[in-house]
């Protein structure tokens, strides 16, 4: 049982390779939990459809490439817009009607939507994955001396960091973001100041969903494009959100990357626990600091 205590420190390349995988996973955790946190802040619902929308982003990129011949770079822009527009439709047609009810109904509604979306894609494409080739500009890799870095993976980490920091900047440092933060605190008062809060809610949901779709496009060349890719990751992201607490944007980013790294390290030192380590950490955090590492007590 305590065999992991006797494992010698693995050779550096293995260690760095797992660190890299951890960072990649962490990039997706961070982007997805960021979207969840933004949506939760304003709409007060946990968007269970988030995983399905991440999957939709990946599929959108795949459709663009396979059916229309549109490549990776345009897909990075088009897919989030298309899926985000779909999100706006969902907010207008469905979520808006239950905004005044118990927040649990929002969870149930978005759960139902996730089932529908996932079921439709499973019916159409089966459960196996579809390959999406890495764009030519990002193929190959570079030897960094201590490890081999596939360029695409490096790009994903850089891109996701960029996306996260931009989102943080927009929310915390711009006028638009100040409206958003104010509406999160007190929507009625903000509306009284002449800001169209319902439209803001709609666009915020669209933006959060677009972020999930963007993560999906980035993920397409790494993981296979599969109808199940969303539900596999969303539960882990929920745990990440519980650990980080949803009070702060920076918290979501830091805990996303951090937990990805922890997961990668667990794979090196004690692989049996790698799929459950995040849930164990969640349990520990709940014991010590129930509001989450960066959360405020509610």
């Amino acid at each position: 049982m305590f065999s992991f205590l006797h494992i010698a420190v693995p050779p550096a390349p293995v260690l760095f390779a797992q660190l890299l995988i951890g960072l990649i996973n962490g990039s997706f955790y961070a982007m997805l939990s960021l979207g969840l946190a933004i949506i939760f802040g304003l709409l007060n619902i946990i968007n269970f459809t988030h995983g399905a929308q991440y999957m939709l982003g990946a599929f959108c990129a795949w459709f663009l490439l396979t059916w229309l011949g549109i490549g990776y770079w345009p897909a990075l822009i088009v897919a989030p817009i298309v899926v985000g527009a779909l999100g706006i439709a969902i907010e207008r047609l469905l979520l808006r009607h239950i905004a005044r009810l118990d927040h649990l109904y929002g969870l149930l509604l978005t759960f139902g939507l996730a089932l529908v979306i996932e079921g439709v894609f499973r019916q159409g494409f089966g459960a196996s994955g579809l390959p999406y080739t890495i764009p030519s500009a990002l193929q190959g890799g570079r030897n960094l001396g201590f490890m081999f870095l596939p360029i695409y993976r490096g790009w994903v980490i850089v891109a996701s960091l960029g996306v996260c920091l931009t989102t943080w900047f927009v929310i915390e440092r711009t006028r638009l973001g100040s409206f958003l933060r104010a509406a999160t605190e007190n929507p009625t008062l903000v509306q009284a100041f002449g800001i169209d809060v319902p439209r803001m809610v709609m666009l915020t949901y669209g933006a959060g969903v677009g972020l999930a779709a963007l993560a999906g496009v980035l993920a397409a060349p790494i993981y296979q494009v599969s109808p199940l890719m969303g539900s596999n990751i969303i539960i882990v992201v929920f745990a990440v959100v519980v650990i980080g607490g949803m009070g702060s944007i920076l918290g979501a980013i830091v805990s996303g990357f951090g937990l990805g790294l922890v997961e990668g390290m667990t794979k090196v030192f004690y692989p049996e626990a790698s799929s459950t380590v995040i849930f164990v950490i969640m349990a520990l955090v709940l014991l010590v600091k129930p509001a989450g590492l960066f959360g405020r007590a509610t």
Partner: protein
Amino acid sequence: MTLGSAKRRDLLIWTVALIGLALVAPYFLYPVFLMRALCLALFACAFNLLLGYVGLLSFGHAAFMGSAAYITAYTVKAWGLPPEIGILAGVAVAAVLGAAFGWLAIRRQGIYFAMITLALAQMVAFFALEAPFTGGEDGIQAVPRGHFLGFIDLDNTFTMYYFVLAIFLLGFAIIQRTVNSPFGQVIKAIRENEPRAISLGYRAERYKLQAFVLSAALAGLAGSTKALVLHLASLTDVDWTTSGSVVLMTLVGGVGTFLGPVVGAFVITTMENYLAQTGSWVTIIEGVIFVVCVLTFRRGIVGVLAPYLTSEREPEVAEPSAETS
């Protein structure tokens, strides 16, 4: 507060009629289908005890049903224990798991509670996939039903049916009794207004945890029985889709009604039965039902029908003025 005599009479009539129906049902319908539906109905009732009466949405109840199913299947098959001991072992493990998960999850409320239970249940699902005794993707198959108390042969389908019916009625009665007890009044008070219940001197967390453990144990009872009925404990039993499905059953039937989860379980199981050949259509239709229920049908089948089926006409919610005066 006591039930009105007219309502009590109506309830008695309905109870007798439904039990009578359940007694003759296997002569008209496929018994294994009925047994499976009864197990899921008990599972849904256990879930409803939390959602309907304590106001806690657990999104990880499959963990309790599934772990009990695995324990019963393993003890009965590998150790050759009699079915009653196997079921007790399954229920005990589900209760212990429920105590641990409940202890962690009640630290947060509302949406967080749902997410935490979901994540903890996913841990159980990973464990079931990787642990040495659970059979991985295959699950534990060909579980023997054995002889109840040593002399009642459960391999006979009709005997097994009445055995399952008895277990279901036992579980149902426990829930009914719990909700109508002083304990039940306190958990309902916590659901309505937790700070107030605390200010009245009730330790809300302790009540919530007790209700959670009871719910987990009963979900385990359902899972253990189901493992014997179907000769199988599989990854489906611990999967998050099963947790979602029990939410759906309760929602369709009527949250916070006694018979709602039972009706919902039969409706959803019937639907799954008919659509089993159509691949992912089951998932799609379940999703659509979820959306429709949340948008337009939040009271559920029993919640809508109940006023017409009993002579009770007054609204369920007590008038606030009577409470504050």
